[in-house]
Structures are given as structure tokens and as C-alpha cells.
């Protein structure tokens, strides 16, 4: 495993003023990465919680840390990664040189990671290990509209990639706020088994209440029994949000690797 004993890692999350589960996965991934002692220091910051992105400007003020990797724990590029994070962290591009000489390296959001498709498939498999995938519909849930980002496009992109693998009978995008809606699952699918994976960073109101309500299942089932919900003669297997997967710790680390690899590549003529 790589060692970055003189680099620091800053993981940027959205956080929430109402949902206590929002920042939990980000904090967990940070704790796991810290445990591995790859970086000299690991910290988180949040748009809607403390420490704020502005607070993070005061972190890593340590002469022994020449570089800081910034990894957005977001599903897609969009308003937050392009506008809010650079503004609040005073980033001027992929690499920002601070007056102290420290360099802040702005990595791509976790949702862009090339292994995301594999993670979604693994989640889908783990929640329904015994079923035949060919006779199963896989629904990837995105937020859709209203949110000022490209998460719907990112979810679409994942569905296309999974579909191309020809493993599941059907692979579809469904959304909370735009058609095809989660609540149309019965119309959209024909198979006996339906697996639903939220393409979200954390569990919270959407995945604990909104999606189960739209599916017509009891959300508590998912946590307690692990057994599928039976509805209209179908079996519904509902997974937790993709971002709660412990593998996200690896994804975050690998985003810093990718950044480094890309910067090392010879620049193209443009």
C-alpha cells in the first residue's frame, strides 16, 4: 500500500443541519483511513456541519506537511465541486500554492472513481446473494432535478455501464424527483426479484423514508431482518446507500492516487 507520510488528506462532505446520518459515513471513512497511517494527517470538513470548509483553511499548518489532498465525498461533479468547494477552500485550480509553500491538490469526487460500477454491483449482490441476476431487475436510485448537480447524469452513466455487462435481466435508473420515479417500480419491472441500490453518499431521510415509502415497503425491514420485502408477488431487496460501503475508504485513497498519476502523465499538446 502507498505511504504518504508527509501528505495530509482532507475529505469534504456535504453534511446536514437536520439529518444526523449525513456526515457519519464520511467520518467513518476518515477514521478507517487514519487507522491505516498512510497520511500524516486526515481531516474532514463539511458544507453544513462543523468543521466548515473555511475552518479547514486552518488545518495542516505543519511545516512537515508539504501537500494536502482534497477529496470531495460527492457522487458527482456539480455545483459543490465546481463552485462551493473551490470558493470556500480558496482553490485556484487542480493545484493551489499557499503562501506557506504548502500545495493543496484538488482531486475528483469519489463518484467519478472507475471502480464505482463494481461497487454498485457488489452492493446489489450482497443485498441479494442467492438470486439469479439474469432474472432480476436492478434499480439504481438517484435524486434527480432540484439538486444543482449532475448526480442524475452520473447515475445514468453507471446504469449504462452495468447494462453493458449483461448480468442483470433489467437495469434501470429511477429517481426521487423526476421520472422514471421510484414509485413506478412495479410498472417498470417484470421480474420476480427487484434489487434497489441508492446512489447516494449517505443514508438519511431519502433512503430511510422517502424511497421505502415510494416503494411501498417498511424501511425497518432492511435493517432488522435482511429478508426481502414481499409486495405484489415480487421480492424487493433494498440496499443501504452506496456511500456507506466501507470500500469507500479505498475509493477516497485511490482518488489521491489518480490525481498523482494524472499529474505525472506528460501534458498533451493542448
Amino acid at each position: 500500500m502507498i505511504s504518504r507520510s508527509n501528505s495530509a488528506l482532507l475529505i469534504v462532505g456535504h453534511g446536514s443541519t437536520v439529518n444526523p446520518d449525513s456526515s457519519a459515513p464520511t467520518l467513518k471513512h476518515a477514521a478507517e483511513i487514519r487507522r491505516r497511517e498512510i497520511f500524516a494527517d486526515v481531516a474532514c470538513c463539511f458544507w453544513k456541519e462543523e468543521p466548515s470548509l473555511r475552518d479547514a483553511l486552518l488545518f495542516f499548518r505543519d511545516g512537515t506537511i508539504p501537500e494536502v489532498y482534497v477529496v470531495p465525498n460527492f457522487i458527482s461533479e456539480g455545483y459543490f465541486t465546481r463552485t462551493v468547494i473551490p470558493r470556500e477552500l480558496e482553490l485556484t485550480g487542480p493545484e493551489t500554492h499557499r503562501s506557506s509553500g504548502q500545495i493543496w491538490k484538488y482531486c475528483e469526487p469519489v463518484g467519478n472513481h472507475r471502480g464505482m460500477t463494481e461497487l454498485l454491483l457488489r452492493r446489489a449482490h450482497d443485498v441479494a446473494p442467492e438470486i439469479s441476476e439474469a432474472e432480476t431487475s436492478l434499480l439504481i436510485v438517484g435524486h434527480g432535478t432540484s439538486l444543482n448537480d449532475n448526480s442524475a447524469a452520473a447515475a445514468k452513466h453507471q446504469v449504462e455501464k452495468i447494462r453493458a455487462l449483461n448480468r442483470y435481466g433489467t437495469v434501470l435508473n429511477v429517481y426521487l424527483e423526476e421520472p422514471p420515479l421510484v414509485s413506478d417500480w412495479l410498472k417498470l419491472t417484470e421480474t420476480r426479484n427487484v434489487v434497489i441500490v441508492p446512489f447516494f453518499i449517505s443514508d438519511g431521510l431519502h433512503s430511510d423514508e422517502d424511497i421505502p415509502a415510494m416503494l411501498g415497503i417498511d424501511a425497518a425491514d432492511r435493517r432488522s431482518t435482511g429478508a426481502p420485502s414481499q409486495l405484489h408477488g415480487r421480492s424487493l431487496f433494498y440496499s443501504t446507500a452506496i456511500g456507506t460501503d466501507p470500500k469507500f475508504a479505498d475509493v477516497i485513497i485511490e482518488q489521491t492516487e489518480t490525481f498523482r498519476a494524472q499529474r505525472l502523465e506528460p501534458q498533451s499538446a493542448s
Partner: protein
Amino acid sequence: MNGLAQKIALAKWMVAGLRRIGQISITVRKDGAFSLTHREDTARDDFTAYSAVEDAAEIARFDDAGKYRPLKTAPNLRHGWQLMIGDLSGLRLALDLFYPGRLAAFLAEENGLLETTPLRESLERQSGMYRAAAKIRDEEADKLVGNFCRSDGGCLRTILWKRDGEGAIASTQLPPEKFDPQHDQTGLAEAVVPLLCQEACNLLVAEARKMVKSEGVASPAE
């Protein structure tokens, strides 16, 4: 490894007797371990015992009534727990989960490197749904900060920022000690590691926006 500068500073603060931070009391035990409790709990012994650094995040997440605490420096830390921590690295991480970012802010201040941002500048910088917050009038901001940031029931931080670039006080409705890092904002009058506020938090910005929006409905002539 791991935030060396902060760890050295923390050790110094412990030696200097700064063993209170916000609502937390830190006891240094003979074996070098640290015991953390709520400051109002030092006399009790019916604690729920915790020993993992990360438990700090769980303890800090909900208040006594089980309600989510969106502002970690609000004076509503729950009671009835004791967190045992083996070493200084752990103490630093735990305090950073209880009061995120505050050690870094105090250290920067001690080193004369803490820059503060006037409220107007924080508001002007906003985009998207928060852009409207900048329309708040001075009198309204004065009232809002006086209420929202007050140590008694609002937030235990020491305010270091000004209302504007001219240096207007953040709020005339707050007592002078709200701006004094030496002052123990809990009112218990002990030596503390202060919880510094160098720039308005997102919650205050959101409140400013709310004020502007509600006014838009209430007084359309404005």
C-alpha cells in the same frame, strides 16, 4: 505523525491548566490517560463508559433529549458519559470530534495567524440559495447575532469577527465578554481552551437568509 503541531500545543495547554473546553472537563490521570466528562457531571459516578476515540462523535451527535445537534458548539452537550482516552493523539482526535476545528483555530490564534472574516464578507461570498442572505440590514444582523450566537442557549464560541470591513461590532446586544477569548462562555469562570469563532458559521448564514426571506413576505413595500 498526526497533527504534530496541534498535539504539542494541546500538551502545553494541559500543562498550563487549560483542562476545560466548552462543556467538557479533561482529567489527566496518573497513568497519563485522559478522562473526559461533561463539566456538570464531575461529581457523579453513574456514567456510561466509552473508550474509543470515535465514540466522541456519537456522544456529540445528540443532546440529552435525543435531538440532533447541528451546531457542536451549542451549549447542549449531553450528560452522563465518560470517555477514557489513552494518549495525546487520541485526545486531539476526540476533542476535534466534540468541537470540530476548534483546536486548529486556537492554535492559529496563539501563533498570531488566525484571520477573521467580517460577516458582510461571508454573506457576500454566498451563491445559490444563500445569496439572499447578504440583503440582511445592519439592525437585523445585530439582532440576529445577538440572539443566535449568545452563549446562554445559543453557542459557546467567542466571536472574533466584525460585522463589516469598517470594524463594526458583531452585535451590540452581546456582552463584552462574548468577544473575550479569556472568558469562560459557560459562565463557570474556569480556565478554558476557548472555542473561537473566526468566521460566521453556515447556520448563521442560513438564519440570515431566513430573516431576509420572511421579511420579503411580511413587508413587500421594502
